[in-house]
């Protein structure tokens, strides 16, 4: 699977907003941002700098980035912008030249109205661009001098698979690993007299990796009610459409739990196991066959070598044989690895009709 440019943009903007970064400028193709301290620590890899800031209690200077989602469109828009600016500058100049000199001194050139930059764009200084184009006329493509220092805005392309996007992905994963949330009841609950009881759920998003010499992955977001013991293997759908908030809303109380956290975990793992066992296991059988074939091949190869008279040769053959057998197992042996992307406790309004038991 992959992500579209639009999905990437939405993702990154959500990340920046959630972590409190300052959005300086944005378009469908880019966003310019000054990172919050939180995001800077996650993304820029400057542990020494942050260590220094914290020890000396200095005001931190976070880094700024120009994240470009669609370089072609962005550059085209920038070019258009600088051309417009250039034209504007020229027409102003032209107007000034044609202006009769007045004794009053104040030269009020006609403001060009026709060729302003498209709205929604923050206008950068056009001087460096003009300079670029003059140099460019003589030298073709010119590498601009690296702009260093606090005012520097580093440009990075965020396409799927780019290192920066991957670092944002991992930052989101680190920053969103463990939650404790309540369903927001909205206006209704505040005006009603009857307190509502919320059901506590343990929800875990599992990742199952089916691995041999190749690999396939599945996500299973499963939840178990810690009060009733009910398991919902479509926990994600259960959460969909509900507003979640970190604070216990007014007029709400929580049903007592009957399962411990550990029992909840067990219930989830068991539900997951039966899901995994139901998956077509031909991949594992095939991998196992490959493993056997490979083992037979080296058995045949080392048979004679292991019977060497010379003890030194024999020892080295034994070592090689053992190592090679281990490598083959390492490479081919089918196994399923289960880890969790993230997890949490979710307090949810019970289903209006409790009879829908999704547990199979």
């Amino acid at each position, binding site marked *: 699977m992959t992500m579209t440019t639009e999905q990437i943009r939405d993702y990154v903007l959500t990340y920046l907003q959630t972590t409190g970064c300052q959005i300086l400028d944005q378009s469908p193709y880019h966003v310019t941002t000054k990172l919050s301290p939180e995001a800077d620590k996650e993304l820029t890899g400057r542990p020494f700098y942050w260590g220094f800031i914290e020890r000396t209690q200095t005001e931190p200077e976070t880094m700024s980035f120009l994240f470009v989602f669609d370089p072609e469109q962005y550059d085209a828009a920038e070019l258009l912008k600088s051309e417009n600016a250039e034209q504007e500058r020229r027409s102003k100049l032209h107007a000034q030249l044609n202006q009769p000199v007045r004794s009053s001194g104040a030269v009020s050139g006609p403001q060009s109205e026709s060729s302003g930059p498209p709205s929604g764009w923050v206008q950068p200084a056009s001087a460096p661009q003009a300079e670029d184009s003059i140099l460019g006329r003589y030298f073709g493509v010119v*590498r601009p001098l690296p702009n260093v220092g606090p005012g520097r805005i580093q440009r990075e392309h965020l396409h799927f698979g780019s290192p920066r996007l991957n670092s944002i992905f991992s930052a989101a994963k680190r920053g969103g690993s*463990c939650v404790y949330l309540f369903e927001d009841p909205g206006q209704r609950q505040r005006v009603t007299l009857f307190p509502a009881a919320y059901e506590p759920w343990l929800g875990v998003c599992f990742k199952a990796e089916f691995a041999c010499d190749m690999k396939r992955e599945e996500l299973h977001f499963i939840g178990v009610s810690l009060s009733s013991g009910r398991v919902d293997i479509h926990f994600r759908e259960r959460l969909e459409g509900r507003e979640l908030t970190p604070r216990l809303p007014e007029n709400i109380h929580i049903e007592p739990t009957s399962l411990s956290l550990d029992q909840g975990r067990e219930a989830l793992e068991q539900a997951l196991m039966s899901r995994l066992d139901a998956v077509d296991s031909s991949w594992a059988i095939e991998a196992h066959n490959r493993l056997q074939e490979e083992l037979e*091949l080296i058995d045949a190869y080392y048979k004679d070598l292991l019977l060497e008279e010379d003890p030194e040769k024999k020892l080295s053959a034994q070592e090689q044989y053992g190592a090679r057998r281990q490598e083959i197992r390492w490479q081919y042996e089918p196994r399923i690895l289960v880890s969790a992307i993230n997890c949490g406790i979710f307090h949810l309004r019970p289903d209006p009709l409790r009879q829908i038991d999704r547990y199979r």
Partner: protein
Amino acid sequence: MNTQREADLPKVEFDRSWYNQLDTRLGKGGPWDSWDLFSLAIQSEEAALVTDFEEMQCLKHLHGLEPLPHQTDTARKVLFEMRGRAILADEVGLGKTIEAGLILKEYLIRGLVRKVLILVPASLVLQWVRELNSKFGITATAQKKAHSWQSDIVVASMDTAKRDPHKEILLGQEYDLVIVDEAHKLKNKKTTNYQFMLKLRKKYCLLLTATPVQNDLDELFNLITLLKPGQLGRQGDFSANFVVDKRVVKNEDQLKGELAKVMIRNRRGDGQLNFTKRIVRNVPLQLSPEEQALYDGVTSFIKGQYQASGGNLSSMLSLVTLQREVCSSRDAVFVTLVNLSKKLAPDSPVRDQIWELVHVIKAIKENTKAEKTMELIREMNEKVIVFTEYRATQEYLLNYFRDRGLSAVPYRGGMNRGKKDWMMDLFRGKSQVMIATEAGGEGINLQFCRNMINFDLPWNPMRVEQRIGRVHRLGQQNDVRIYNLSTNGTIEEHILNLLHEKINMFETVIGSLDVILERFEKKHSLEKSLYKIMLESESDEELRKQVESLGQSLDSIKQEVISAGDSQEEEGNLEQLLGG
């Protein structure tokens, strides 16, 4: 409830670190993470999820790299059929590095590989690091200190890795993937290289070499034993089943079948890998009387020195350079002469001879070659790269062109990376001409330019091929036009004759040029042989004859190598075998 699992289902391992984390936070009452980030985390995991065992993921993750079809096919085959242990034996220039990069990237994305060791010749370490980073977005470390080995992906030279103390560190590790570039250095079982590789613990392994067999079929057996011992049976079985003589195969189809399970070899001319044509034009030039005088003066000076030294070739190298430079430009000769005279005692009689030559140089007003080059460039009116061997010639040409209103950019080995890139950009952009002294090394990919001028010729055919390879490569849409400047009545004429008529190297790509040269140079290097001929022949006629006989022996080796590729019955059907 289904609690009893069947025995043949794969075992399931649970990573329960999430539970401990949640338990701890519950105990402390927090801190709790944001729901937005929680959702984002699932969203990106979902986007990066590998949903299929056998669908290549890496292409979705790569931007700015468009692998050629044969490269993706190769990667796919190695991943899904060969299961990650393979010899990549493409001919030079077809992108073995790209193939290895794709495979590495795919394994990284799938989380099947974390710890990687890449062993390459020392001179290529930085190039690999750079390419992995720029083309594949893979951060690799160039091994410098002992702690470099801690990094997940390390590029190191084989010579370093196999020595203590590094060897012990590496043999104590387990590598998910080991890549060896120039793997023909592993062909001999007895070498430390080979023994080291045998002991290295690895899950997947890629061996890259353009010449999996150079001399002997056993080399192939040894390489494969590193990957998959037993694939070709035991050593004895292999010899009995497949080998007639060192270079002669029997049961070829069966062997081909076995090889195809562990080795992929793409060749030029295979299907889609058709290269455009090379069109060669030799441009004979007549030196002006002054230039001819210099040439003759230098020649007799060198011969005199050679005789005075009693025929000692090794002491003559700088003088031989002089002879080659005189074919290039007077500036090149001048610099070398001045340097020579600085080294001599003030009262040495040789000094006077040198100063005489300098006077001859001063008398030269025109540069026949430069004039002709200018004329050619104006005529073609397209991008063109001019190659020269000498820095002084490069400077001269830059000035010469500038004075005549033609902008040219220089390119040389000594420039740093940034400057090289810049020069490349300039040439791609506005400049019509690039003047280069270096043809080797990465980064000079000039498929947008289809003209090249050999202002002078290297005497080493590999270097000539390197030059042509910068322009005549995959991605070149047009036929490539090669202009060779050669001055009549000079050694250059003979060299050109040798390279063009005998090796025919300008017109066809010789995939096995390195093999031909290696066999020829078992006795002497080609360059040395040429020096000797040049210094010792009494007359132009003798020179011609000697070069002729050199050409004959090159030609016969070439025929041998080619026929090895063409016929199955005759001696040596190796090329055929590998071609499969």
